[in-house]
């Protein structure tokens, strides 16, 4: 067990840091520090393509798919430098962090060749079709259906149903969905994992306005939408395993980038507290110190997850990670408002342009809900890490 990086790794740090700084002070200075996930979307897509062209988009992937075969330490370094230079949140992250790794691990060679290079290049963007109106926490209750049809274009899946809370669907060319492909099945059995093109007549996207006033989430409707039979990841009917694998990738190197964002938010709180004198209040100081501790612990936990080398199988450090960061950030949002004081009650500009601290306060309410609510996380931790008995279901 040791910390610290080798001289070669430090040289790599200088290399990627120099490139990133050039971009953020040159061609892409206009999107430096952009924290909203949806703002300046066109420029953010150009940034994704620039990352791809310079092979900085997915450095941990194999070279043949647009990566650099980078080892863990290099990925850690890149994630740190990326956030340090103020590069914006990745509009392509659902492809680079979820769809890509899933296809890499569970997909066929043909699927890899078709999809991975375009994700790496920033040419195709993705969204995630998991939740439905009646399948939120109880995800295996999905009702979106697909049946295989043999027509003039060969065998195709024909999809009917609805997804909800679909982030960034408005920018995506592709969606990965879980849907029922076997009549009469319930729960995890009979679910398939399909890759579906968004731009077709059978797919409709409708934005959802959120608590912050912005629309990052959407509803996605499938009415006779189609995708080729071979765009099923894993065997038909065995998609649940693949879907769970995707969730495990959410706890990968990207967590480090996310933490650097948190770090920037924490720094903004400290700056605000210094400005208005809140930093002299003993209780605010205690809470800032506590937030700082949490920030560091998240980093150490992420390094542990990455070092454990058990991709796919989650150790206790990985199972507890989501609830830890989500709860931390929600508390940070509350602290932000206590630091801001009365000024935090006003929007920056009508109709509803929030300044960063109130925005963090509102936005962070989603953290303990999406990707598994805190309550579901606790069930998972208790059942999978501690081996406690399941609560009996009401319907089976």
């Amino acid at each position, binding site marked *: 067990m040791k910390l610290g990086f080798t001289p070669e790794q430090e040289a790599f740090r200088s290399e990627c840091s120099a490139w990133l700084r050039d971009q953020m002070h040159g061609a892409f200075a206009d999107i430096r520090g952009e924290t909203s996930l949806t703002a300046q979307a066109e420029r953010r897509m150009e940034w994704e393509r620039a990352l791809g062209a310079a092979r900085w988009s997915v450095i941990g992937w194999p070279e043949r798919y647009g990566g650099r075969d980078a080892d863990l330490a290099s990925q850690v370094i890149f994630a740190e430098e990326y956030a340090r230079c103020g590069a914006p949140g990745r509009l392509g992250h659902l492809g680079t962090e979820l769809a890509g790794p899933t296809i890499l691990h569970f997909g066929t060679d043909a699927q890899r060749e078709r999809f991975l290079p375009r994700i790496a290049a920033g040419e195709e963007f993705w969204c995630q079709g998991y939740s439905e109106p009646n399948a939120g926490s109880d995800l295996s209750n999905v009702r979106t259906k697909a049946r295989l049809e043999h027509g003039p274009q060969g065998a195709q899946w024909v999809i009917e149903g609805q997804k909800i809370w679909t982030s960034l669907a408005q920018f995506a060319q592709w969606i990965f969905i879980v849907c029922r492909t076997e009549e009469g099945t319930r729960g995890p059995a009979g679910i398939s994992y399909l890759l579906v093109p968004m731009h077709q007549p059978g797919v409709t996207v409708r934005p959802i306005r959120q608590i912050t006033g912005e629309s990052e989430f959407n509803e996605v409707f499938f009415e006779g939408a189609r995708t080729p039979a071979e765009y099923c990841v894993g065997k038909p009917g065995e998609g649940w395993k693949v879907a769970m694998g995707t969730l495990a990738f959410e706890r990968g190197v990207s967590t480090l980038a996310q933490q650097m964002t948190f770090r920037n938010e924490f720094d903004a709180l400290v700056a605000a507290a210094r400005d208005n004198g809140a930093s002299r*209040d003993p209780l605010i100081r*205690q809470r800032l110190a506590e937030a700082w501790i949490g920030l*560091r612990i998240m980093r*150490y*936990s992420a390094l542990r997850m990455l070092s454990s080398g058990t991709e796919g199988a989650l150790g206790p450090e990985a199972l507890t990670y989501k609830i830890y960061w989500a709860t931390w950030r929600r508390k940070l949002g509350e602290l932000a408002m206590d630091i801001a004081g009365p000024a935090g009650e006003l929007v920056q500009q009508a109709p509803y342009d929030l300044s960063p601290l109130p925005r963090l306060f509102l936005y962070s309410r989603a953290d303990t809900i999406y990707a598994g609510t805190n309550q579901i996380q606790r069930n998972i931790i208790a059942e999978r890490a501690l081996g406690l008995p399941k609560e009996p279901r009401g319907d089976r």
Partner: protein
Amino acid sequence: MQFAFTAEQEMIRDAAREFVAGHGTSARLRAVMETQAGYDTDAWHELGRELGWVGLMLPEEAGGSGSGMVELAILQEEMGRRLLATPFLATAGMTVPIILECAGAAQTSRLLTGLAAGEMIAAAALTGDSGLPGEAAIAVDFTPSGRGGGRLNGHASFVVHGHVADVLLVAANTVQPEGGISVLVVPRSASGVHVTRLTTMDLTRPYARVEFHDVELSAEALLGSMGKADAPLANGLRIAEIALAAEQLGGAAGVLEMTTEYVRQRVQFGRPIGSFQAVKHRLADMLVMVEAARSAVYYAACTVDEYRAGAADAKALAEAAALVKSYCSDAFFNCASNAIQLHGGIGFTWDHDAQLYFKRARASATLLGSSTYHRRRIAELIGLDAETIGGER
């Protein structure tokens, strides 16, 4: 960068777990609590003399095995898991790191030969009757005489395992115009040293109060330079805080394990109570704390090793120590209080071990500075302006 145990570290953990499983039984602990010595002499002799664990972190020339802080943290964690009652924390976790920071190599080798061999118990006398951390609480004066020696007067309290210590490591204010802290090694048998055992709420770890009346010391008793031990003492204390935090992690993990087992067995309303979400969610929260504490403890331990190798500075060490002591104090206490609640009535009884974890958690949270104290230090370390009370906000 590899933040996982090496094969050797896994072996140490397995050996420690096996050792603790043998010695750390409830019956044994309760028997030890009744004795005047207040520690498990068999376990102590075996881990010191046979297994060489007291000398783990000591350099090989001092008879130790030259291992690092990660290894020490592993031992502390495993011992904490079963509340093993030995002077290991006092000796290997607190006193040895301070000696290593304060003394030169030659002096260290001379002092530590007996310690490394597990022949001696050492205790650190760092605070007075207030028991608070920090130099202001030191209530011992060292008055220099000629030839580098001098006299000790005053008292120290909350000295962990002080009543059974062979040697006391004493932090003293130096009576000289420029003041400063001196750190001295004093045999408990020295003339003018009076030790009184205190009865603590946590019976698994006794404290002592020590009085010093004109204790004459030669120059050899002084660690490092006279009146200049402030910084090395502080750095040694940081390592001690991390050692204690590792033990707190073990305590939290141990009490979680005990409670998990109980809620699996205990049936009410026709179901194991561990199947009710009201119960399992509390246990999940405990595991979240335990895993966060584990990440923090091993990162802090790595920071100590980096610091000792010259790859991290004293500020990084101070941040790591304040972080981990603060977090682990709260984590262990929360886990232990949940354990009592989840055990129900039986958890409130003397005969159940939940109370032992609860009291150890409370005592450890206070020892070497509370979580509030350590967060206050963090606020300073991360550069918040000075605190004011009753401002305009």
